[in-house]
């Protein structure tokens, strides 16, 4: 069990190291750098060289990679080329904002999705199932920026309950973000729920037809207890991986949704960094997102272990 966790951790570390190399390599392979982006198309001659020298860009790529990765190892993500500030400072607040958004969406979305999925499974092919399944297919098919725009139209423009876009600075305390965070959070939660819900529904239908559920019924176990104690843990097993994948998707979705709502999170920062060819910043954000992704999968594996005694005692 502990051996298994250590193995997974080592694997996660290896994945992150690979991500480091890949991210550095890909950004390096792109034509142009921060100086050409900064100085414009006609950047040449001494101005360009000075700019490059200032930012150590004249050093060989390998050497830069070594310095950078050594910094990452010590928790220093480097310095933004465009903004001339430590990346750690730039990222900290925005990371907090995005985490609040993502966690909020997950905390609302996942339990709701599980409950609705179970409800749809138990009322299979009847009205509640039709409504829930139909709704989830609808939420799955339309892209998240359309959902976002739709929500803005209804709740911000028509009803005027929430602001349409965020105008607060990234460093504002969380409490000031609260009215702004609601709409992006709902958008994220909606799309995420659809996938999880459908998975929970189908695996719950399978489990409710299994021998041990029939046995629990014939043992006189009350209905709600059969559903939540006997059936749900087994039904959650296939759903957990979907949840992990969905959260991973959420990381990509967050970039788009933050952009739509002008939310001061890591996604908006990343898009700006790409515009600016601010390679260290892009690298740092890509690495953070990859780390979150790996962490989610690790948590999903651990959750499967917790739910499935077969996996736990296999070795």
């Amino acid at each position: 069990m502990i051996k298994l966790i250590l193995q997974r951790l080592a694997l996660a570390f290896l994945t992150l190291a690979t991500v480091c190399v890949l991210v550095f390599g890909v950004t390096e392979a792109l034509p142009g750098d921060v100086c050409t982006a900064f100085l414009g198309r006609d950047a040449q001659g001494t101005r360009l060289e000075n700019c490059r020298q200032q930012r150590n860009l004249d050093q060989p790529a390998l050497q830069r990679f070594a310095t950078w990765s050594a910094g990452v190892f010590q928790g220093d993500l480097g310095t933004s080329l465009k903004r001339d500030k430590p990346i750690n400072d730039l990222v900290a607040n925005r990371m907090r904002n995005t985490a609040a958004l993502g966690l909020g969406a997950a905390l609302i979305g996942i339990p709701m999705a599980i409950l609705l999925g179970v409800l749809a499974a138990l009322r299979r092919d009847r009205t509640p199932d039709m409504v829930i399944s139909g709704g989830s297919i609808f939420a799955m098919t339309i892209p998240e920026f359309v959902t976002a725009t739709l929500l803005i139209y209804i709740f911000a423009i028509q009803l005027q309950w929430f602001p349409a876009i965020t105008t607060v600075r990234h460093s504002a305390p969380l409490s000031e973000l609260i009215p702004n965070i609601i709409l992006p959070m709902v958008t994220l939660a909606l799309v995420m729920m659809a996938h999880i819900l459908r998975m929970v529904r189908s695996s719950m239908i399978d489990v409710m037809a299994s021998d041990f559920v029939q046995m629990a019924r014939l043992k006189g176990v009350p209905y709600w207890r059969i559903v939540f104690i006997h059936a749900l843990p087994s039904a959650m097993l296939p759903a957990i991986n979907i949840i992990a994948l969905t959260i991973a998707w959420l990381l990509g979705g967050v970039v788009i949704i933050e952009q739509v709502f002008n939310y001061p999170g890591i996604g908006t920062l990343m898009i700006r960094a790409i515009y600016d060819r601010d390679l260290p910043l892009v690298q740092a954000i890509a690495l953070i997102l990859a780390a979150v992704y790996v962490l989610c999968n690790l948590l999903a594996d651990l959750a499967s272990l917790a739910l499935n005694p077969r996996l736990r005692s296999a070795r």
Partner: protein
Amino acid sequence: MHNSILHVQDFSLGYRNRAGDLVSVLRHINLEIRQGESIGLVGESGCGKSTLALAMMAFLRGGSEVISGQIDFHGGNLFTLSSAKLASLRGGKVGLIPQNAGQSLTPTMKIEAQLTEALRLHSNVPSKQWRQRAIELLQQVRLPAPEAMLARYPHQLSGGQQQRVAIAMALAGNPELLVLDEPTTGLDVTTQAHILELLRSLRLEMGMTMVFVSHDLGAVARISDRIAVMYAGEIIELGRCADVLRTPAHPYTQSLLRAIPRLDAKGLPPSLAGYPPKVGSVTQGCAFAARCQHATGQCQQDAQLLPHKEQWVRCHHVGQLPASNTVVSHLVPPTKQNADTLLDIRELQISYHKPGFFEQLRNRPAPVATVDDIDLTLKQGQTLALVGESGSGKSTIMKAISGIQTPSQGQIQLQQADLNQPVEKRDRQLKRKVQMIFQNPDASLNPRHTVLEILQQPLRLYFGLNNTECRQRAAELLQLVRLAPHYLDRMPGQLSGGEKQRVAIARCFAGDPELVLCDEVTSALDVSVQAAVLKLLKELQQEKGVTYLFIAHDLAVVKALADEVAVLYQGRLCQVGSVEAVFGGYQHPYTCALLNAVLQPDPDHAPQLCGDDTAEQHPPAQGCAYQRRCTLAEPRCRQATPPWQQVGGNRIRCHLSLDELSSRNGMPMLIDAANF
């Protein structure tokens, strides 16, 4: 009248098919179960026995509805109870012991949680004593180390242990009526005998009423006072256990009893023509008429269940039939004595363990091989049966021969060809020579291919036939397995179990094989169909001269079909010899334990339990493989690998001398229930 506990009155049950027609599964069942009585419901698959048993707990499978009648428990109709009353009855006064305990225990809950749940719901044991009571229950079902058992999950137990836990769970509610739905199906012979003895002794101790559902008349004979034989949703014969088994009155019961292979008979049992009808296909007249040799025009009308001597029988001709005789002359086909060796296995060792990188570095000793030290020869045109409990390595050896699992040591040779190479590396001719028939035709036939497409594949692959040739040859193959040519365009889903297995046999013979590996080929089939399939296999062998390597858990089937028997325990050979020698001559203690555990459809036959039924995880590192369970084990059995002893064609691997074996095996140590 007398104190009846459960009364089934004119009970009919059915479901609506897609067309909206009512398909009846049970038709006008009348059955009264008295307090303390044990009644056996027997019949073949689809006869409605499990449906009836579950209806006794007011449980209907999805979509089913009661068409007529009712089932009373202590005088109250079960189907009018409120759901709360029903919930307290189920698992309480009426307990269920399910067919497949492994799948019926919730996989994510520990044994303790599942037992205390039953106690909480159905007993007034205070919560502080739940754990204590759970331990008592596990002791009552004779599980070793009950406290450790509580902390385990179902998958950590063996099949027999899971079944015992399921029994303990039913006992937790202090049931008056116990419904047992095929409780021993799928278990090893020895485990089955142990579970049946446990149920018998529980019945004597607690005076419980039991409804025992089984397709196995041998198991029913051990437990039941009365037997109800079911066919196509009706009870066709009802009477005292001994009467029904000794003097069956209904033609179906008679032919069913005859079709069961027996240890004390020679050769193949006579088979029953045809197949059991599909659920709901019979609506009028005697359901058995189509397969009955005594059928007349009168049988087109419904027959009533009427008393005949001591029994109740549903047959127009009861009493006019020739006197039934269960001891019948079994068919004994002549066996060819061909001296050429076809398959030669030398010092075969198979290990599933592959040392990892770190293990190689640390130079750890590899775990004991799954299968080791197998020497077998198989002569052309003969049948060798591998017998042993689950986990004894039978299937592993078959996998090695078929090339799915590469042996780690030793030699397998088919005439001059080397069978050590994996199946991908064998040439087409060698592949053709070794064919396989699987246990479950539902799983081994592609459900989306027609029978023709299924048979075409080997014909194209091995003989390169074109379409018209294929069709012609496929029709011949169907004829070979006694199926009409119009089956060519059917899908497996449209065939019955027996027909599907015939198609699987036809596919196997399409390659014109020399060695056929038969993996439990009849265990998924009903008894009445099994006899016909065994007969077919025997006839094909005589016609084509093929050699069979046969795996079966049913020793009576082995006796009927095989020429040679190899007894395996934990991947090691215990005994090899001719059928006559193994079943009737000197026996290895394990052979003896297996044979003594066999159930017979005979009210006077009691299995004898030698040793316990603990399932072992790994074979011992040294000494005799069977040392841990052997009742005759001595210190030397734990240290040295026993030598082979040979008498005629009979090889036994045991430290004890043949004389010691014959004198001590004669009195197997009976496990006395009271000693626990």
